[in-house]
């Protein structure tokens, strides 16, 4: 087994798999089970200020987007922060940290945007012996309407201000959890750094309305014939999270700012992708909520084998290794040319490649050959768009062939990918300059 130990902003954990602040980390009972199952750390479900406990709906608070076979693709919730008394949570956190000294225990916080409120809770959390703080600037529902959660995260000045208070009044590492419900994720991340935050975590959930009940004509989940928008997460949000994480990883102004990645991570592959795109560790919620804590076994074994195969000595060794492959469109090599190719031995002749190309793309796949059902690429029309590859139900049947030192029959031009041609230098670009 490869060494999965991680040190994230000074917080050590036996593996990079943490449970995100959410229902699975709301109380000692769950967290004990999580640690018994092997999770490296947890971010305790968000604590609010002392006083009358938070009230959740007693109607449904979750709704999902189902895929084939009722697998959960997307997940939405309208649950609020913890609805248990602050004192009880703090007491349990203290006990858990005592019982599980080798695991990471970070406490998520959300109190009103007032210095006194933050100051008060910070000292109480510190007394528990917890390893760090995560500032919940992300929840898009319920709390944001009360001026907390995403309402803070969407205003970079507030992010900076609260982060600064936390650094001032606590010696614990501060992780700022970012909301994806912004136009440019770099702004709040830069603000967090300016405020002195040790790291950011992202993404929190995305604003969403899941579905409309076509019988009652009201939205789901329905609470007494009414519903509200909730936070969207699960496998469907992974590409959005990957984009935001990697966008920070390559932002010069965020250079060196550790990232804890969240968003649709369901298995070791997802985790590896986030690590390679710059995350120092990962947080999981939906996959655990739809399968239980045991899924961490696959994550541990899978990541470990992957690292061994790639000769990564440690998790930190692989962090950010794919970031250099990410660039802006204008820097892509326009001389790189591919054509679809069909393996006739594997082809089951469903014709999906043909019809999608014919109806919606470049009319580059023939459906008949000498009157027979046979699908063949017309290279004179193929632009290598990859649509056919994505719809082909047979793995490796449709692939893209890279052209090298041969004429592209579509353009009549010789293809020489080694001579890179970026848009910044392209003759058709009126703004082109020789420096690229």
């Amino acid at each position: 087994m490869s060494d999965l130990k991680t040190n994230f902003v000074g917080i050590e954990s036996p593996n990079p798999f943490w449970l995100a602040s959410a229902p699975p980390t709301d109380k000692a009972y769950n967290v004990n089970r999580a640690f018994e199952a092997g999770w490296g750390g947890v971010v305790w479900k968000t604590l609010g200020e002392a006083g009358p406990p938070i009230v959740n709906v007693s109607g449904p608070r979750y709704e999902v987007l189902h895929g084939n076979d009722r697998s959960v693709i997307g997940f939405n919730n309208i649950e609020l922060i913890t609805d248990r008394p602050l004192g009880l949570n703090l007491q349990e956190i203290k006990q858990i940290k005592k019982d599980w000294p080798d695991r990471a225990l970070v406490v998520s916080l959300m109190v009103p945007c007032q210095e006194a409120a933050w100051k008060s809770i910070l000292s109480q959390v510190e007394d528990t012996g917890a390893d760090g703080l995560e500032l919940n600037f992300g929840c898009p529902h319920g709390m944001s309407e009360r001026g907390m959660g995403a309402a803070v995260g969407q205003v970079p000045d507030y992010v900076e201000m609260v982060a600064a208070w936390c650094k001032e009044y606590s010696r614990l590492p501060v992780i700022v959890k970012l909301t994806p419900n912004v136009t440019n994720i770099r702004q709040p991340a830069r603000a967090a750094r300016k405020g002195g935050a040790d790291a950011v975590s992202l993404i929190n959930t995305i604003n969403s309305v899941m579905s409309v009940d076509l019988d009652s004509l009201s939205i789901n989940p329905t609470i007494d014939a009414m519903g509200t928008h909730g936070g969207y997460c699960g496998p469907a949000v992974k590409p959005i999270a990957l984009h935001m994480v990697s966008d920070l990883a390559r932002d010069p102004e965020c250079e060196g700012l550790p990232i804890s990645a969240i968003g649709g991570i369901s298995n070791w592959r997802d985790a590896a992708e986030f690590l390679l795109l710059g995350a120092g560790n990962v947080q999981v919620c939906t996959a655990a909520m739809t399968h239980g804590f045991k899924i961490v076994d696959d994550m541990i074994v899978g990541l470990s084998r992957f690292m061994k195969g790639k000769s990564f000595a440690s998790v930190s060794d692989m962090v950010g290794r794919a970031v250099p492959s990410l660039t802006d469109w204008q820097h892509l090599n326009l001389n790189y040319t591919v054509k679809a190719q069909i393996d006739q031995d594997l082809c089951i002749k469903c014709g999906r490649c043909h019809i999608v190309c014919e109806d919606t793309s470049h009319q580059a796949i023939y459906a008949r050959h000498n009157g027979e059902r046979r699908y063949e690429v017309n290279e004179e029309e193929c632009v290598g768009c990859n649509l056919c590859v994505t719809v082909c139900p047979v793995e490796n049947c449709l692939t893209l062939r890279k052209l090298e030192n041969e004429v592209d029959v579509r353009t009549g031009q010789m293809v020489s990918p080694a001579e890179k041609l970026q848009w910044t230098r392209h003759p058709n670009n009126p703004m082109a300059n020789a420096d690229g």
Partner: protein
Amino acid sequence: MELITTAHNGPSGVAAERLNEAECQSNFCEMHAPLEGNAARVEAERCYFCFDAPCTEACPTGIDIPGFIRMIASGNAVGAAGLILEENIMGGTCARACPVETLCEGVCVRNHGDDRPVTIGLLQRFAVDDALEQGTRFFSRNEQTGKSIGVVGAGPAGLSCAHRLSVLGHDVVVYEARPKSGGLNEYGLAAYKMLNGFAQRETEFITSLGGIEIVHDTILGKDVSLEELQECHDALFLGIGLGGGNRLGIPGEDAEGVADAVAFIDDLRQTDKLSSVPVGRQVVVIGGGMTAIDAAVQARLLGAEEVTIAYRRGTDAMKASIVEQEFAKIRGVSIRYWVQPSAVRLEEGRAVAVEFQVGADSADGEKFAIPADMVLKAIGQGPHLERAGSVGPFEQVDGRLVVDENRQTSCPGIWAGGDCIAGGDDLTVSAVQDGKVAANNIHQALSL
């Protein structure tokens, strides 16, 4: 699949009550359990929605199979049923009785590799049953044309033709020899394929459109003549099926204990009490088609202790598909290939065994006998055109009517379809297509 109950040490000879009624009812349970809502959606999602789908090409009625499956996947089973019934008004029966493994499912692209085909038959049944149960109306009649068409035979071909004609605005009178409509759907398919009176429910659905009058117990050539029908209708469609079973031409075949498999199945379908249908203790079924399978399996389900299908050629030549052969074997039916019956051995005038020789073509092959107190002949049915009383005007091949691609016979004004025409494949689904094609062509001819 439930284990079937088998009788032990019953009396020899052909006898009723080998199993009690409860045991029979349990044995005659559904051949394939119908799909439930979510299972149907999951199965529907397996369809690749092929371009120019091979399944549709393989369907004799040309149902838009990927189209209807996609509707099931989106929770629109009734819409799916509409798409099915538009091409095949007997989509419900065909979903139960079609040999899908040789038609749509046989060419499903999912057969490649280690995958299995989409269960198109079960999905079709899911959609049509749902719609029929809800009493959905899919069709309305065009403006009345004032034309009247006579249809002979209320089987799949005749009812399909009648329905399409009615939709097109014509009035139809169907003349049916038997007391019930449905033809082989009612009298010829195995009971376990058509539970709960489905053939009658389907007939009711078809005739609920209006414009279709069915006159039962009316035999062409006996109760009514072709000339009379020609006189009182603007066009005729013959869907008269086939007559009695073919003869083996061997000694002993008229003895007690020897029967026609078609008649045996007919008795089973028409009885109110399955256990009252007499069956042998040791049954030999001679033939290799679906009738042989249906008769043999049902003999087992009634409590026959030993059932053997004897076929004169090999497994590949059998008209019953490999799947059907396996279906019979799982239910305890033995199949002997390459055996030719030479005589029914009798004792006191009753069948006790069938004598065979090995090898269909060699006269001096090995000889052996299989004990049998019941022998069922399932070697095809002969034509009964002579019943029409006007054999003269029709061009025929082996007693079957020759038709063109529009199902028009050589006799002007008379169309035909189903088992009575030459070149067919004896499938319900093909009969439905014949009726549909003929109706469209009759409409065209009458509109000129």
